């Protein structure tokens, strides 16, 4: 694993500088610093309530940190709204699946293409031919790249709310991928999945990260230590809004403080190995 991380470029894609976030008197994040290199899978772990999702919401723009800076592709993005961050290459999935239940799988993924439509409101009306051609291009992209990758051909036309939870999570991933993001934030993509689904999802994440077509940098929040240790190039450990450490999986496993705070005194990490 350490070998692999040396192969990655040193270019920084996302950087958090001294992020503070509190709700009233509750401190959710106090002084978080994080650097995510282009091309890596960087995980964030920590016990429940450590502030992981708050951190993701700050990165994605749903929350505004009271203090601190966020840099994406070397530009400051702290004041940007979530939809503006989506446009510059940031996509995410949610801890509790947030899919558009009444719509079909295909429509859900089509919405992920929203930012890539070039024809605006008037153009769409004026150049029906051009807009139609664009629509076909997007359709082909969705069919050939996303539906194929995630193996969801058979449910394309089903309304998402009728699908089992595992497949809903897959659709949500597909929708985020449709943005063709540079950074993909995955907030507990494995929670609530059965063993087989966990394996599938882990494989998809690896594909998205490694395949030439995608090469998406992933920021992964997950509790399944087995998968986290296997997939990640680096792991950021969070507890009560403070960073405990940031390092390779090997370093994290050896760190006594991490073991105390999260892994437990005993060998707890090998959950699903």
């Amino acid at each position, binding site marked *: 694993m350490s070998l692999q991380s040396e192969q990655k470029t040193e270019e920084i894609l996302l950087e958090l500088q001294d992020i503070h976030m509190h709700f009233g008197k509750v401190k959710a994040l106090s002084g978080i610093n994080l650097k995510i290199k282009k091309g890596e899978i960087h995980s964030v772990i920590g016990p429940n309530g450590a502030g992981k999702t708050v951190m993701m919401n700050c990165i994605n723009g749903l929350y505004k940190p009271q203090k601190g800076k966020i840099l994406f592709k070397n530009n400051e993005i702290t004041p940007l709204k979530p939809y503006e961050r989506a446009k510059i290459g940031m*996509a995410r999935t*949610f801890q509790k699946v947030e899919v558009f239940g009444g719509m079909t799988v295909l429509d859900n993924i089509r919405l992920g293409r929203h*930012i890539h439509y070039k024809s605006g409101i008037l153009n769409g009306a004026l150049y029906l031919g051009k807009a139609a051609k664009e629509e076909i291009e997007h359709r082909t992209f969705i069919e050939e790249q996303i539906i194929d990758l995630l193996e969801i051909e058979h449910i394309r036309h089903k309304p998402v709310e009728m699908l089992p939870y595992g497949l809903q999570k897959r659709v949500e991933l597909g929708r985020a991928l449709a943005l063709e993001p540079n950074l993909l934030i995955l907030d507990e993509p494995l929670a609530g999945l059965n063993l087989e689904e966990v394996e599938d999802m882990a494989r998809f994440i690896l594909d998205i990260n490694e395949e030439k077509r995608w090469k998406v940098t992933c920021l992964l929040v997950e509790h399944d230590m087995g998968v986290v240790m296997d997939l990640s190039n680096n792991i950021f450990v969070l507890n009560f809004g403070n960073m405990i450490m940031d390092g390779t999986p090997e370093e994290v496993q050896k760190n006594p403080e991490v073991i105390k705070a999260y892994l437990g005194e005993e060998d707890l990490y090998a959950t699903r190995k």
Partner: protein
Amino acid sequence: MELFLMTIVTGIMVGGIYALVALGWVLIYKCSGVLNLAMGEMTLIGAYISITFYSMGIPFLLALLLSLIIGLILGILTERIFLDKLIGEPVLSVIMVTVGLSFFFKGSLELIWGTDTKVFTPPVFPLEPIEIGPIVIGQAYLWSFIAAIILLIAFVCFFKYTRWGLAMQATADDEMAALSLGISARFVYAAAWSIAFISAGVGGTLLGNINGLNISVAHLGLLVLPVVVLGGLNSVPGAIVGGIIIGILQNLCGAYLDQYFPGGVKEIAPFAFMVIFLLFKPYGLWGWERIERV
């Protein structure tokens, strides 16, 4: 028989206007879940603006177009000033804000235009009626209906053939997820309110042409409720069909029941019908049936 046919035809014509206003209402509900209680005042604003331009000697179509543009601007302003801060707040708060907006609009209207009935002078549409076989219809009705239908088709196409239709539905469904996909909730709300202002304004102008224009045209905003309840609160085709049905119903009651119950049968019939209808079909004709699975 002739009376019956004529009542039906006039009902359809007026119903077209109701449908147009209802469509604007449905859009706001569809993308934000907000029951807009200021719709009636919005019809008045558009109508007063176009009558003002018209009385300044500007040709009717141009006056109408100008009022549409102002409606668009007002929609954006309403979103920016009143509703932007409420993104993410409970829907009920926003509904209360629309009640406030309705008072605010009404007050401003009375301040600017007074409470007297205004009419379009000279009349926009020729006064002599058109005869189609046994049916005689006023030209104002016919042209209003045509205008309403054109606008309805334009709006429906906008939602069917641009990506914003889907984006609006997505925002309504899950604002947080929509934001994460690069859909600007602000834009969606501003678009919905602008379209609502426009459709309300045109509806008000057309109705003002038929009956003259005063504060009571704002009842149109209330009349929208039976229309959308009938069609299903979030259904665009439902709003159109509902509008026409309510138009017919109202006219039939006016023609046949008024002699037995003189006074306001015409006014209350839609609401009585709404209550009865709700007993049997609480989701309307095409509304989403939300069944919680336990």
